[in-house]
């Protein structure tokens, strides 16, 4: 089935019915996912600056409300609206699969994420053309495929090829029939700009490099220890739990956190388990490229290039991969 691109706004109107529809667009000069305002979404050009993870895993999520005083009460906060995420690309779709693995599939189910995820419909779109720092193909992805999305709009040209990958997607597609026609759509031509030397062996090689202080000092020295890479990363899912009270009422919330921050590993007694930037950035790289693989059987990097775009010190994970591969081959 295929869909004429000029009919896109009609489809968006369908998707927005009784639901919050998120599409890529500009918010004060920053491209990010925002509520659809009737305008044509910005599907072309570079990917959004901020990933769509906020929609499923909010920057700040209230977990429960409490009351203290003579009695103490705790009540869970359930906030999972019906949502549609439209226009995410292969890399970001895969990042949601990574988060699914963390929050839903492995061990305990995280109720907050799982509820939001269950109420979300994801419509992914073929990548229209990679940015200067993209390398999703090296991470095993195809810019013109998103098997994890409920619905995928593929290919280039005047039409999108339309496929439903899930039951939820199929149900949704039934509403689209009047806009769908038969026919083929050529394969999208977008390809990544970068091709770092990613290999199945890298994970093990990196773990082997753990004690190579000189190597880590060299790759981490320019790092400024800010949280930019973590916050623009579509897969960074670490969070902090905190409370905020006014008088004897309050809420406990969780919020994004970054393993680059000095207070991330600060213990109550004053001990810090990763006091130096070398240790912290090493942990981040290894989490992305080695540790996550051991637990979940995939990398925690999708090759979207956002951290490369935004790193104040111009650190570059693709360059890091090459460098590690080179050192390993010695």
């Amino acid at each position, binding site marked *: 089935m295929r869909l004429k691109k000029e009919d896109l706004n009609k489809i968006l109107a369908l998707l927005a019915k009784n639901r919050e529809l998120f599409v890529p667009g500009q*918010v*004060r*000069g*920053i491209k990010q996912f925002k509520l659809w305002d009737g305008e044509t979404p910005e599907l072309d050009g570079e990917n959004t*600056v*901020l990933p769509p993870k906020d929609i499923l895993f909010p*920057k*700040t999520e209230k977990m429960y409300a409490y009351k203290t005083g003579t009695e103490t009460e705790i009540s869970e906060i359930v906030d999972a609206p019906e949502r549609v995420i439209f226009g995410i690309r292969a890399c970001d779709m895969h990042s949601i699969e990574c988060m699914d693995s963390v929050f839903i599939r492995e061990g305990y189910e995280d109720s907050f994420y799982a509820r939001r995820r269950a109420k979300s419909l994801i419509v992914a779109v073929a990548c229209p053309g990679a940015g*200067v*720092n993209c390398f999703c193909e090296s991470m095993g992805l195809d810019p013109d495929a998103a098997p994890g999305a409920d619905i995928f709009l593929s290919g280039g040209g005047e039409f999108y090829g339309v496929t439903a990958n899930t039951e939820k997607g199929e149900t949704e597609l039934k509403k689209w029939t009047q806009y769908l026609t038969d026919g083929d759509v050529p394969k999208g031509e977008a390809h990544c700009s970068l091709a770092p030397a990613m290999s199945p062996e890298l994970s093990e090689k990196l773990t082997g490099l753990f004690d190579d202080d000189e190597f880590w000092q*060299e790759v981490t*020295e*320019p790092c*400024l*220890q*800010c*949280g*930019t890479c*973590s*916050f*623009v990363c579509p897969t960074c899912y670490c969070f*902090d739990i*905190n409370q*905020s009270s006014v008088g004897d009422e309050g809420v406990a*919330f969780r*919020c*994004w*956190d*970054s393993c680059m*921050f*000095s*207070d991330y590993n*600060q213990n109550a007694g004053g001990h810090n388990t990763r006091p130096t*930037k070398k240790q912290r950035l090493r942990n981040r790289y290894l989490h992305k490229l080695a540790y996550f693989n051991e637990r979940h059987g995939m990398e925690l990097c999708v090759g979207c290039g956002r951290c490369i775009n*935004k790193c*104040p*010190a*111009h*650190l*570059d994970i*693709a*360059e890091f991969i090459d460098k590690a591969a080179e050192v390993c081959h010695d």
Partner: protein
Amino acid sequence: MSDIQSALHKRARALLENGDVEYVIGWENARGENKTRPAFIRRAEDAERLVWNRWCVNSTAKYLLHDRWPKGKIAICARGCDTRAINRMLSDGQVKRENIYILGIPCAGVENQICRRCAHRNPLVYDELLGEPAEEKTDFDRFEKVKEMQAMTLEQRRQMWEDEFTKCIRCYACRNVCPACNCRECYADQYRTGWQGKQFNAVENRVYGLTRAYHVGDRCIECGECERVCPMDLPIMLQTGRMLMECNELFGQYECGLSDDETPALGTYNLNDADSFG
């Protein structure tokens, strides 16, 4: 520029070969075109990795704070703004002059908007100057953008900052890159004190933005690094700029990082200071 770069190679190599310095902080090419990153050269044979061109945008000075007790001297490539940063840190007692060897680099401006409003294109302090001094410029108004904003109404300004701080993701890049942000432990990291809430919302972000501006505003050396690194493109310099402008108006000509023993405007007083409080 290539003259300066070759002089830099020669000097860096010599300093390392003679064991005068432990390492040299400068810039090297990063992957891709038109991109450099801070470099830390420890071996004489790596001296050629150093580059100097208009893509050398990163401030080098902040890295002195990453190594407060170096084993040997640190040589540092420093443009005008970097030397102001070094002066700032010297004034604040954060680094020791005898630990630093400054390779001064005259700079006509790199690929950064802020360089158009740079009043100090030549290093203010150095152990040696590489190349010929650059031509200084004065054909600009330091506070042009601040003034534009002052022309707005209060309500417009409130809305503008509301929008901007809604965008802010509090990654703390502005703090971490700032040479005036040199507290050993930032108030925002002191999680037990609770001054900075961990929530991401416009109010917490505003509290952070304004607190940071106030912490550094009277010590800001106007290098513009905070704006360059902001992933959300917040006009952070407007805040510190407004504060500097006010210091200029209230306390006389005021510019930071020009010498190594400055007292910040709010760290001193004058009996005849302006007083509208009554």
